[in-house]
């Protein structure tokens, strides 16, 4: 075994066990509650407003590398695409990474199929921009004068460009990321945001299946254990005892 990863492996094993136990408990009891996320309500409001105004809504994942944030974004995109299909509102998706294009097409197509509106889907509205994502995104927002602007994923400075471009048209804006360096900007500029883990919890709230509930409860429980460990560890180190610290670093 590699050095310094024993506790990490233990945490991973505990995480997986907690995941399955939580999913099974939900399967038996059906009990799950999460606070209402303002971001989901704002998404619906934005799409409703876009429908009234006859304008499209815009979606982007940002320019960050492909990671699990995209997976959370897919669930929220499916929700937004479903609402757009239901209300016959255009959804324009700007994409920077080529490998995300086929996945996005599948997610959007699935949402339209579920609403029985597959013939309304416009494949050319899923747009791959590559390295020119940012200017192309600003251009799209400006030309189409979007009524709603959503950006969920691994966000960098492009979130500011998107926020300011869409603010000129008073678009309702919802963004979400785990990238802490962008959170202040999106918090300041958007109508609602998903902070880190909220993106994943929102997915479970949309469709509370055992798997999604398990993947929300497991991080919650492990986080609680971490908080206790941090408090105990801080007290122990303050008193000059580094046993816990040494144990965790193994």
């Amino acid at each position: 075994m590699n050095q310094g990863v024993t506790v990490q492996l233990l945490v991973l094993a505990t995480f997986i066990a907690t995941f399955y136990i939580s999913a099974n408990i939900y399967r038996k009891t059906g009990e799950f509650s999460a606070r209402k996320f303002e971001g989901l309500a704002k998404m619906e409001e934005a799409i409703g407003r876009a429908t009234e105004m006859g304008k499209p809504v815009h979606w982007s994942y940002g320019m960050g590398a492909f990671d699990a944030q995209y997976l959370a974004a897919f669930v929220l995109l499916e929700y937004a695409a479903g609402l757009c299909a239901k209300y016959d509102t255009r959804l324009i998706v700007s994409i920077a990474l080529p490998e995300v294009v086929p996945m996005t097409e599948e997610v959007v197509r699935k949402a339209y199929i579920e609403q029985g509106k597959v013939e309304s889907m416009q494949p050319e509205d899923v747009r791959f921009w590559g390295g020119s994502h940012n200017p192309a995104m600003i251009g799209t927002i400006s030309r189409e004068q979007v009524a709603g602007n959503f950006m969920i994923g691994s966000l960098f400075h492009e979130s500011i460009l998107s926020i300011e471009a869409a603010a000129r048209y008073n678009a309702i804006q919802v963004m979400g990321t785990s990238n802490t360096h962008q959170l202040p900007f999106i918090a300041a500029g958007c109508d609602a945001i998903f902070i880190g883990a909220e993106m994943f919890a929102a997915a479970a709230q949309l469709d509370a299946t055992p798997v999604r509930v398990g993947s929300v409860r497991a991080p919650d429980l492990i986080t609680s254990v971490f908080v206790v460990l941090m408090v105990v560890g801080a007290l122990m180190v303050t008193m000059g005892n580094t046993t816990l610290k040494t144990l965790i670093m193994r």
Partner: protein
Amino acid sequence: MTFIKTKLPVVVTFVGAFIIIAQYYFDIPAWKTLAAELLRWNVILAAFALALGIGGIVKLHWGRIARRAPTALYSAATLITLAFFLAIGLAQTTRGESYRWLYDYIYLPVAATSYATTFFFITSAAYRAFRIKNSYAAVLMVSAVLMMLQIGIFAAFLPIAPRIAAWVWNIPTSAGMRAVVIGGALSLVGNSFRVIVGLERGHLGGGE
């Protein structure tokens, strides 16, 4: 067809992820070599995806030209540039003199100009953010002022300002950011696990 579209990607994802994760925990040289090789394949796969993306771009802009949309001229410029870069790149590779010239003297200045516009966007974003509309905006404004007071002439007139700014940065900001990082990281693990073991297949056009 269903197997190729939905089941095979799950199997490939599971096997690939298992090898990459296992070599992180266990010291098995053969697995490390295999993991490094898989990561190299990732670049090749992305190149295939790039071809799909280019196909999408051509389809979008060709459609605009065909129906004589108001932006057809820009679409034509995009397609001509795409074809030109592609032709030069294929003829000389990306290390060729002409390709480097095109990249260094056309693409890079245009990209830098685009990036530089962030300054103006940040300025207008700051103006909108610092208008005190509610208690959250007030906290943001006060924190921003405290951070700004630590630099230049402000610090000379108010020597305590850098210490206050350092406290804001090191204590409340770090605490909040670490909470987000820990919560976000664990959720990322949960989400990734769902995909790796094939419990989540939304991105493949299927459900759970």
